[in-house]
């Protein structure tokens, strides 16, 4: 497929000198990048490199320390609701209400995003059928497996027809079948509806297969950007995994677990984990 010249395409995401400092730690350090409309863009980096912090800033959950962000032409600082209405997101951690059914979770989302009732019901049915959950629509989420939850989160994130779809490690803990199915669907969606896809992952073959362009972030800085082929060429390696390791080094990173993660772990162990 021949891509239209990058210069002419409109940017869906434009980030300039974005920085986020926590007390003494600089999680994101002056990064700049652009994602054009209709592109599938992978954001890669080791644990604690600043991926999730960046996504949080792009999606209005966290205020940047400095720098500029433009999402679909809107500023997340001053035009929060315009930004919010224009993207969908699948978070790294679960974000469904366990005590509600899948249909109710969809309803809740649709109402929050002001999708008109008939349209909401129609799309909910469509989407739940696509992710194979229509026959489980009246079951409580707490009876769902990790894969089912993920599929529902994807369906939910698309309910309001977003222009950008953020996926923060969407395939973590999923089996190859579910992963494959999920990416096929996302790619099709990208092709058909021209939805811009921005995702992070730890599976390099996934990024290689799906992403049109890749940025590698480490220690809060973007250290390389380009197509998978360009990154391999730049590092003189044959696989993206090797390119990644060559760029970020072989040392294992320890990410400090937040209180939340600790609590979740304990709860998961207590209930018998499903994910």
């Amino acid at each position, binding site marked *: 497929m021949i891509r239209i010249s990058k210069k002419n395409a409109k940017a869906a995401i434009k980030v300039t000198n974005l920085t986020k400092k926590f007390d003494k730690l600089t999680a994101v350090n002056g990064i700049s990048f652009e994602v054009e409309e209709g592109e599938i863009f992978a954001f890669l980096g080791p644990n604690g490199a600043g991926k999730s912090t960046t996504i949080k800033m792009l999606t209005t959950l966290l205020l940047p320390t400095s720098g500029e962000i433009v999402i679909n032409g809107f500023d997340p600082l001053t035009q929060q609701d*315009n930004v*919010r*209405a224009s993207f969908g997101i699948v978070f790294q951690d679960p974000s469904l209400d366990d005590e509600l059914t899948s249909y109710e979770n969809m309803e809740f989302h649709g109402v929050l995003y002001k999708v008109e009732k008939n349209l909401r019901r129609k799309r909910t049915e469509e989407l739940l059928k696509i992710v194979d959950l229509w026959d489980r629509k009246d079951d409580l989420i707490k009876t769902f497996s990790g894969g089912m939850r993920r599929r529902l989160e994807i369906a939910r994130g698309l309910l309001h027809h977003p222009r950008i779809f953020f996926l923060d490690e969407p395939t973590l803990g999923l089996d190859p079948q579910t992963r494959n199915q999920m990416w096929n669907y996302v790619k099709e969606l990208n092709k058909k509806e021209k939805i811009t896809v921005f995702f992070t992952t730890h599976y390099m073959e996934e990024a290689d297969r799906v992403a049109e362009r890749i940025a590698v972030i480490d220690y809060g800085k973007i250290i390389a950007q380009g197509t998978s082929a360009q990154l391999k060429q730049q590092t003189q390696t044959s696989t993206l995994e090797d390119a990644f390791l060559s760029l970020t080094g072989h040392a294992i990173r320890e990410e400090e677990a937040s*209180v939340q993660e600790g*609590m979740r772990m304990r709860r998961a162990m207590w209930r018998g984990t499903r994910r």
Partner: protein
Amino acid sequence: MKTIYILWLRQLKRYLRSRSRIVASLGQPALFLIVLGFGLGPIFKKAGGGNYIDFLAPGVISQGILFTGIFTGIELIWDRQFGFLKETLVAPVSRFSIMMGRTLGGATIAAIQGVIVLVLALLVGFRPYSFAGVVWAFVFMFLIAFFFTAVGTAIASKLEDMQGFQLIINFLILPTFFLSGALFPLNQAPKFLLVISEFNPLTYGVDGLRESLMGTSHFGLPLDIAVLAILTVIALAVGSYLFSKIQL
């Protein structure tokens, strides 16, 4: 409006689905009513206080609402921990309507809990003095519920985890309950207890409820309503300010 409604509905659905929680939360009020009511009843009567169950019931109803209200407010911490808060915070709706929807939902649950305790009290022999009074009692139940749910939400906006939870129970909920005149008449209490109680929001709730259900009051209905209403507005304002500052 729809945002507030859907958040309210969500809270209610969750409540109605956790029947075990409803039953468990009635254990304490039942214990207070039965053990204190029947245990201290004869002494209270001998001292000229009248029927202790009648005196105690409004206090125990308030206690049920206080506990449930604070807890449903604090449930926000669970939403933060188990991820659902993110889903609401990335949505294109005002932070104020999210906070209002949650608080109204929690307050409705707490008020329902109060009504259930009232029914429980009727079962063990409590009799309100007039039917009109019961209508006023509902107003007070909702005010108490609204205030304490807003307080719970405000606290939860600042707390990151459940570690501080025990602290809240020991240093907030229990003193609020014991120092509210729920268990003993304020008229004859020593001066220092009375003064402390006058600074306790729940005191006005208990007093208003007692006035509504029993026709006896320490402060009078207008003052009770005024204090509770003003405090509720303040708690909501503080709660929505803190809520709007939440970053994930």
